C-alpha cells in the first residue's frame, strides 16, 4: 500500500536557535528533505544607509560598527579607507600597521565565532564554541585596551586611528600571537578528523565554482569553492603587500572546505600579525584632517577583505559635509544569495549547517 504524503511548509525563524539573528527560512519539506526554500530577511533593517546621508563623514564611523557587529574593526577600516580615497587623505605608517593588526585580530575573532557557531549547528552541544570564545575573549581584551570597547569599537578615524596603543598592548599581543597557533592546533586535534563532523560536512552543501563566481560570492565561501581571490592580494590596500601570507583555498566547496578555509585563515592572520609586530615603527597615528570634511565632488568605491568577504563602501560626495549616497556592499547578504541553491535536496539538518557554514551576520544583511 502506498502511503499518501504531501510536502509541508516549515517556517524556520525569525526566532530560531540557529538562524544567527533574525533570518527566516520558509522551507518546503518532504519529510526531512528540503524541496524549496525562500529566504526572508529585513527584520533587522535600521536604515543605516539612509541615516548616513544626514551625518558627517566622521559621525558615520559608529554606524559601520553596527553592520557586522562581530567584525566592527574591519567595517571601520573599509569605511575610513573609502573616505580617505574620496578626499585624498594620507595615513601615517604607524596607523596603517595598527589598522592591519586590528583587522587581522578581528578576522581571528570573527572566524572563531563562525567556526564555533557552525559546530554548534552541527550539534556539538556548545563545547567547541565555548573553547573558541575563550580565545576570542583575549582578542576582545586587546581591543578593550586600545579603544575601551569590546564590541563596537569606533577605533579607526579618517586619516588614522583614534588613539595610539597603550604600552601594555604590545606585550599582551605578543603573548597572544605566541599562544594562538597552539590553540588552533588544539581545535584541529579535536575537530579536523572527527568522524561525525566529517560525515556531516564532507560533500554537503556544495557551492560549485561557477555558481560562486556568478553570484559574486566572496571571502571564505568563494575560496572554499576553489577560487583563489583575496582582495589583500588582488588589490592590496593599506600595507598588506609588505607581508608574506598564503591564501588557503578549498577544492570541493562543501561545508567542510568552508570550515577548513576558516581554520587556515586563522593561521595566516596570526602570521600577518606577527610580521606586523616586527615591522611596527613609532610615529604619528593620525594625520591632519579638517574638522569639517568636504570631499570634492565625486564617487568612490573602497573595498577590503573583511572576515566574511569583500566589504565595500560606495560613497558619492556632493562637496557637502555628509555623503550624498552611502552604499554598503555587504558580503553576508551576497553570500546568502547562494543559500537556496545549496540547500535544496538536502535534509533539514543539513540545511541548518549549510546556512551556518556561510557565516552571515544579520546586522550586515539587513543594515
Amino acid at each position, binding site marked *: 500500500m502506498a502511503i499518501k504524503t504531501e510536502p509541508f511548509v516549515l517556517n524556520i525563524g525569525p526566532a*530560531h*536557535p540557529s538562524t544567527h539573528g533574525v533570518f527566516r527560512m520558509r522551507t518546503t519539506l518532504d519529510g526531512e528533505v528540503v524541496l524549496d526554500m525562500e529566504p526572508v530577511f529585513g527584520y533587522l533593517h535600521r536604515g543605516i544607509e539612509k541615516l548616513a546621508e544626514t551625518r558627517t563623514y566622521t559621525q558615520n564611523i559608529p554606524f559601520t560598527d553596527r553592520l557586522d557587529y562581530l567584525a566592527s574593526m574591519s567595517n571601520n577600516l573599509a569605511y575610513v579607507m573609502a573616505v580617505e580615497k574620496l578626499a585624498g587623505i594620507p595615513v601615517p605608517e604607524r596607523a596603517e600597521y595598527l589598522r592591519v593588526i586590528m583587522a587581522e585580530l578581528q578576522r581571528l575573532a570573527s572566524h572563531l565565532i563562525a567556526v564555533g557557531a557552525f559546530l554548534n549547528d552541527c550539534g556539538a552541544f556548545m563545547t567547541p564554541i*565555548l573553547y573558541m570564545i575563550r580565545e576570542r575573549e583575549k582578542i576582545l581584551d586587546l581591543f578593550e585596551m586600545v579603544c575601551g570597547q569590546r564590541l563596537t569599537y569606533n577605533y579607526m578615524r579618517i586619516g588614522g586611528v583614534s588613539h595610539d596603543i597603550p604600552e601594555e598592548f604590545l606585550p599582551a599581543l605578543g603573548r597572544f600571537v605566541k599562544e594562538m597557533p597552539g590553540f588552533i592546533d588544539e581545535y584541529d586535534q579535536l575537530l579536523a578528523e572527527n568522524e561525525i563532523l566529517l560525515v*556531516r560536512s564532507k560533500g554537503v552543501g556544495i557551492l560549485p565554482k561557477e555558481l560562486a563566481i556568478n553570484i559574486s560570492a566572496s571571502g571564505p565561501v568563494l575560496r572554499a569553492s576553489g577560487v583563489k581571490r583575496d582582495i589583500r592580494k588582488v588589490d592590496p590596500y593599506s600595507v598588506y603587500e609588505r607581508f608574506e601570507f598564503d591564501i588557503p583555498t578549498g577544492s570541493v566547496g562543501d561545508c567542510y572546505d568552508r570550515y577548513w578555509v576558516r581554520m587556515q585563515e586563522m593561521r595566516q592572520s596570526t602570521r600577518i600579525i606577527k610580521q606586523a609586530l616586527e615591522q611596527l615603527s613609532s610615529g604619528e597615528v593620525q594625520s591632519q584632517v579638517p574638522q569639517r570634511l568636504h570631499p570634492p565632488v565625486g564617487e568612490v568605491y573602497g573595498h577590503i577583505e573583511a572576515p566574511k568577504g569583500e566589504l565595500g563602501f560606495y560613497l558619492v560626495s556632493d562637496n557637502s559635509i555628509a555623503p550624498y549616497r552611502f552604499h554598503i556592499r555587504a558580503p553576508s547578504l551576497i553570500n546568502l544569495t547562494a543559500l537556496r541553491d545549496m540547500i535544496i535536496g538536502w*535534509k*533539514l*539538518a543539513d540545511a541548518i549547517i549549510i546556512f551556518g557554514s556561510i557565516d552571515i551576520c544579520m546586522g550586515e544583511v539587513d543594515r
Partner: protein
Amino acid sequence: MTTVETGFNSGSSLASLPPDWPGGYWLHWGVFVIIILAFVFLTVLIFIWLERRLIGRFQVRLGPNRAGPFGILQPIADAIKILLKEDIVPAKGDKLVFWLAPVVAFVPVLLIFAVIPFQGGALLADLNIGILYIVAVSSVSVIGIFMAGWGSNNKYSLIGAMRTIAQVISYEIPMGLAIIGVVLIAGSLSLTDIVAAQNIPFILFQPLGFLIFFIAALAEINRTPFDVMEADSELVAGFHTEYSGMKFGLFYLMEYAEVLAISAIVTTLFLGGWRGPVLPPVLWFLIKVFAMFFIIVWVRSTIPRVRIDQIMGFAWKFLLPLALINMFITGLEVILLPEVLPWPIIFLNLAIAAGLVVLWSKFFRLGGGRVEV
C-alpha cells in the same frame, strides 16, 4: 515461608523478608516502591547538578555555583521555577493527548527500576524474565513522546516525534541482540542471576556486545550524538517545544531517569552489578552507575550530532550485523568452549571485537544523502 503465586522467583527479595510483618507483602512492596521513588528522584537531582557542573568543566567554564555550596541547590531552584511556571496548552492542540503524554513517557521509565538489583536481593520484583521486561517496558515511553509531538500541533514537535519513533524502533533491535549475548553466557533472563554469573564482569567477555548495547542505549534515550529528536539547532526543542511548567518538568525528569536507568542496566548486565571487593555492594552499584553517567555526559559534551538518515544507517548497516555476529560467536563459545579458562576467551573476544569494528568501519561509510528534487 509461603510463596505468593505471582510468577516471582522463590529467591525473590520479598520472599526472603520475614513473612510476619504487618500488612504482609503488600506493605513491603509499598515500602520498596517509596524507597525506589526516593532513590530515583534524588539521584536524578544529583545527576542534573552533576551534569551541569561536569559540562561546565568540559566547556572551560564553571557551571552553576550560586545556589548553595558548589551550586548544589540549583536543581531544587530549577524545580521550584518549573512548578511556578504557567502551564500553557496550545489552543489547537489535542488537549487530552497533550496532557497525557508526559505521564505516558515518564511512568515506564520508573517501572524499569522495579527489576534493577541494587544489591543481592534488594529489588522490588525478581522477575525470572527481568531483562525481557526491561526491553518491553522501556519501549513504551516512545508512545508518550509521539503523543507529545502529535498533541502539540507544532511541526517541530511532530518532526522530532517522527524521528524518535524511527530511531528508537531501529535501535531496539541491536540492543536486544546485544543483550542476548549476555543472556547466553549467564544462562538466565533474571537480572539477579545475571549478576550472580559475573565472577568476571561481562564487559570483558562481551566487549562488542557492550559497545553495541551502549551505543544503542544512547540512541534509545536520545542522548548526543543521537539527540535528533530535540536537536536544538534544528528543531528548537523537538517534541517538547510547546511544553511548559511541570509537564515540561516531567519530560526533563524522564530524560535523566532514563539516563539513570540505562546506567543501572549497563552496570547490571556488563559491569558486574553490585559485586566488588571491600566496599558494601550498594556503594559498588552506585559507583558503577555514576561512572557510566560520567561517560554519557562526556560523550554529550564532546561529539556533534549525527543526521537522522545516518543514524538509521548506523543502526541497520553497522550495529545490526555486528550484533548478529556477536550473538553467533557467543553462542559458539558457550557451546564449544565451556571448560576453557576465561582469559583466553576474553582475549579472543577483545581481538574479535577490535577486528570487526575496524573491518566494518572500512566497508560501511555513512554520508552522502542529497536527494534530487
